């Protein structure tokens, strides 16, 4: 099949004042069995033989599990197929003659590094703020001595499926990172190992999310609809509840500076 691509090209990072624009590419001989990234690989080989800069996009596992890949195809994060990362998207989802617009995630907290690659270290800082459990090391406890209900285990696993790709932020009309943050909060807060730091974790991660310059959540739900792992918005409601508990209904905690920082 033949496709016309309009791809965002940007040489210098936004943080260093870089600006970009769309460029048009015609690609012929696209096999429907190629993945979307393979189609771009082929285009890149051609660009290189022509002495032009290849299109920069992020990828690693190409199995839909690492969370590296992702850009917006015709207004949908990771393209038109639900619950699929762009590396797992195949060209059979498109038809001959299609015109596709490829854009990077757009958010102030995700500054563009080059072409379709954005800097997601704001996510790392949200994790650093509270996405961990502190345990004393020693011999492993007897497995059955820490009971976990089936329901909590299931919900924690569902939340832990988040691969941190950033599609939720990309599609949110407010560029909010609430779904990502809520998934990370829920994943630890639902398990026994996460209990000691449950409230301080919630508070710190919410405040870090705000500090990074993401927008606020208005419960649109576009985040969950495009999430390749189908993370539910109920995690956001749970994060809200635990944040309320942490700030309004609990005593100062160890490690809490009192100024909410």
């Amino acid at each position, binding site marked *: 099949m033949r496709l016309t691509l309009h791809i965002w090209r940007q040489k210098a990072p936004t943080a260093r004042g870089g600006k970009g624009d769309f460029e048009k590419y015609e690609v012929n001989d696209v096999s429907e069995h190629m993945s979307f990234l393979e189609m771009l690989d082929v285009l890149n080989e051609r660009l290189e033989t022509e002495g032009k800069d290849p299109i920069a996009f992020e990828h690693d596992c190409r199995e839909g599990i690492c969370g590296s890949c992702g850009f917006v195809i015709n*207004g949908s994060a990771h393209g038109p197929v639900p619950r699929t990362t762009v590396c797992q998207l195949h060209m059979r989802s498109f038809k001959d003659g299609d015109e596709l617009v490829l854009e990077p995630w757009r958010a102030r907290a995700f500054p563009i590094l080059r072409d379709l690659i954005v800097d997601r270290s704001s996510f790392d800082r949200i994790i650093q703020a509270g996405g961990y459990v502190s345990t004393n090391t020693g011999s492993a406890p007897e497995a059955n001595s820490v009971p976990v209900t089936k329901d909590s285990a299931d919900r924690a696993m569902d939340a832990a499926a988040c691969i941190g790709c950033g599609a939720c932020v990309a599609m949110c009309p407010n560029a909010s990172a609430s779904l990502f943050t809520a998934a990370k909060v829920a994943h630890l807060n639902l398990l026994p190992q996460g209990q000691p730091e449950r409230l301080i974790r919630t508070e710190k991660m919410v405040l870090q999310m705000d500090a990074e310059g993401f*927008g606020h959540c208005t419960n649109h739900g576009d985040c969950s609809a495009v999430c390749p792992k189908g993370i539910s918005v109920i995690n956001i409601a749970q994060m809200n509840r635990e944040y309320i508990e942490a700030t309004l209904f609990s005593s100062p905690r160890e490690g809490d500076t*009192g100024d909410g920082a």
Partner: protein
Amino acid sequence: MNFLLSFWRSTVGAKVVVAVTGLILLGFTLFHMIGNLQVFLGADEMNTYGAFLHKPEILWAGRAVVFGSIGLHIVAQAKLVAATAIARPTGYRKWNAKASTIYSRTMKYTGPIILIFFVLHLLNLTTGAEFGFYVHPEPYLQDGNVPRAFENLTSLLGNPLWATFYIVANLALASHLWHGAFSMTKTLGLSGVRQLRLARVIASVFTLTVTGGNIAITTACVLHLVK
């Protein structure tokens, strides 16, 4: 008090303020609509009710709660909207809604429409006579210097232009509440799947009841069905 300041500064905290004040306003809109249904019972019933509401304690307590809530609702929301307005400096060339609705995406427009309506509504029926904003029927006041609610309402909404404006404002209110009354439950932490399904139903029935009742009253007045 640091914790309150920190709560207010956070996006989640400010949203909780929007949701709680929104909830109070939901209570107000329901109460206000049900009270006004008495227009169908006739002038005596309606004016007695009006006189009851004009007892100074009730009047000022009610005004404090409603004005306070509207003020906080708007201040908190304005703070959030201002911060979020810069969260995506460059927009998309293409963007498809996947789950958001026209109702959820127009909250920041339907809100101000409701506010404009609210101000005009007060001028129409609360203070209008003093400002010459609207010509009230004579005599404007009943015994005890209380406005004659029934006559004021029916003559105002007997005017097709005002009636149209009131209906349009209620459609904006319907749109705002359709999203807001459900959104609020998640903001306040309701996270059960079954509970949220029920909340969606309650929010929808609530919205249709309040705005449907208001529109029924307006329609009855403009068609001169109540005298």
